[in-house]
């Protein structure tokens, strides 16, 4: 696909919109593996088009190649289908070599995507309300989920947490959640915007203000592991269904390399077994996880 736009949202966070003629069906919660280098370019060999019968020339670039080998798994933040093309949103934070390369990509650049990968958030048929809890770079899949909530006719509220106001990777006016009729509650660790403290606190208050939240609401969470764990505990204590999207380092994203394991409860002798974040997840029922 090609980069349509790549804009800085806040300190260290970018929104990349990719466009292409087609892309397989996707669901909120799924991710793609992005290659952080020019597609088709071989390190050490010239990438310029060669005449028929000609041979690419060695450039010696392999010696100085600073682009990463492996792809980077990033969750989808949105999808927009038109009559002519498919547009995908990716919101990422720059944490290393691969994401730094992404941040330098400009309009028209080609990016190789592998996907869609992983399972998806499950939308409850019976429960009319939903909390979409995102922390930092865990917010993006919640934006995509908000669009699905609107389509399913659910009443959803987004709970967005960040360390500080300048690290919140969403815009507020207009808000990415507002376009789907979803209100957002902001919490920052330092109180520079919204609630001062963790995003799990307003979530607990929201659940406690509701009659029979266990029959009314589903909580979806993605973000730093301590945040997801706090959210999971709040939900389990109230018997509320909670789906969390885990993040793991992975090589392939397709269930082969067996890198991205997480411990889940099982009938096995030791009481647990490993599941793969890439193909069994990234979305898990919070009750099944061993943190």
């Amino acid at each position, binding site marked *: 696909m090609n980069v349509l736009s790549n804009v800085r949202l806040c300190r260290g966070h970018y929104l990349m919109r990719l466009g292409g003629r087609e892309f397989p069906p996707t669901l909120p919660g799924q991710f793609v593996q992005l*290659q952080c280098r020019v597609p088709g370019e*071989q*390190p050490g*060999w010239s990438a310029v088009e060669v005449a028929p019968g000609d*041979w690419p020339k060695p450039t010696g670039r*392999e010696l100085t*190649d600073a682009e*990463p*080998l*492996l*792809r980077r798994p990033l969750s989808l933040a949105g999808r927009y289908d038109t009559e002519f093309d498919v547009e995908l949103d990716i919101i990422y934070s720059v944490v290393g070599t691969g994401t730094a390369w992404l941040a330098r990509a400009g309009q028209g650049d080609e990016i*190789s995507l*592998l996907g869609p990968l992983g399972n998806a958030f499950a939308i409850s048929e019976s429960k009319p309300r939903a909390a979409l809890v995102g922390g930092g770079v865990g917010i993006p899949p919640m934006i995509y989920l908000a669009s699905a909530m609107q389509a399913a006719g659910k009443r959803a509220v987004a709970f967005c947490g960040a360390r500080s106001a300048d690290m919140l990777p969403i815009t507020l006016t207009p808000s990415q959640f507002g376009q789907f009729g979803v209100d957002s509650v902001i919490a920052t660790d330092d109180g520079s915007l919204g609630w001062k403290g963790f995003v799990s606190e307003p979530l607990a208050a929201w659940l406690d203000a509701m009659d029979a939240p266990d029959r009314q609401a589903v909580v979806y969470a993605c973000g730093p592991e301590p945040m997801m764990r706090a959210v999971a505990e709040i939900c389990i204590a109230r018997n509320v269904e909670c789906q969390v999207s885990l993040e*793991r*380092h*992975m*090589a*392939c994203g*397709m*269930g*082969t*390399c*067996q*890198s*991205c*394991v*997480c411990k889940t409860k099982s009938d096995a002798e030791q009481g647990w*077994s*490993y599941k793969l974040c890439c*193909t069994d997840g990234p979305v898990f029922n919070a009750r099944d996880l061993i943190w």
Partner: protein
Amino acid sequence: MDIDLSVDIAGVQLANPLMTASGTCGYADEYADFVDLTTLGAFVTKSITLEPRQGNDYERVVETRAGMLNAIGLANVGLDVFLDQKVPLLEKLALPVFVNVAGTTIDDYVAVAAALDDVPVVRGIELNISCPNVKAGGIQFGTDGAQAAEITARIKEVCGKNILIVKLSPNVTDISSIAAAVVDAGADALSMINTLAGMAIDTETRRPVLANVTGGLSGPAIRPVAVHMVHSVYRKVASPAGVPIIAMGGIQYANDALEFLLAGATGLAVGTALFVDPACLTGIRDGIVEYLQRHGHGAITEIIGALEI
């Protein structure tokens, strides 16, 4: 001009030399959506042990410059589930299958190899005596010539129809002496190299990145080491004995594959590169054909070991 890409691995005919490196393509089901496995000459499975293994704790991989370190710990479904659930998938491939076998004791290896001799789709055993990531995962057999010879001879006894490929560890002083020992003990082919033992440290926490502390390095970073070892073993052991080498270690593009062919490899396994681009096999195959045409060769076998010094 049609180019003949077929090769012979100890009597098993392959349409082309390309294979999956063990552990990088599972049991063929995972990649079904992403890769055209018909571009392969043979399929090599992830390691199988007698009993299922959970593998090591997270973190299991970390990317390093031009490579990756892994310490998966031979996580696999075990022999019984493999025979029951994975073999039917492999049968659908219509490709020769080589099964990578690992274990803790010689008896474990023998039990798995014997069971696999009854599976028609399996054409060979790749003996893993070189996994660096488990405390007792066979590397003790792979770093000592006498032990390597003993296990090779014991497995060879239970290989009726299956060929025996021994996968060599690069983490030794002299890989050619291990190669000579296993060839003398009955190995039909050699595959090389397994990952290089390595380590990465998080300098902020001052802790190893991998839960297993150490891991095995793969990817483009190790290719020059692998090319050298293939060259060396080809000249000293494999060529004189008439034993084919299946080469692996950083093959990502056609030119990488060509280096190994010239150094003396008959088979070529692609591993880490499949994680990055499951479709890279097609590019490698097409690039080899292009090279052979450009240099006026009609068959890939004409360039095996054609290195000029």
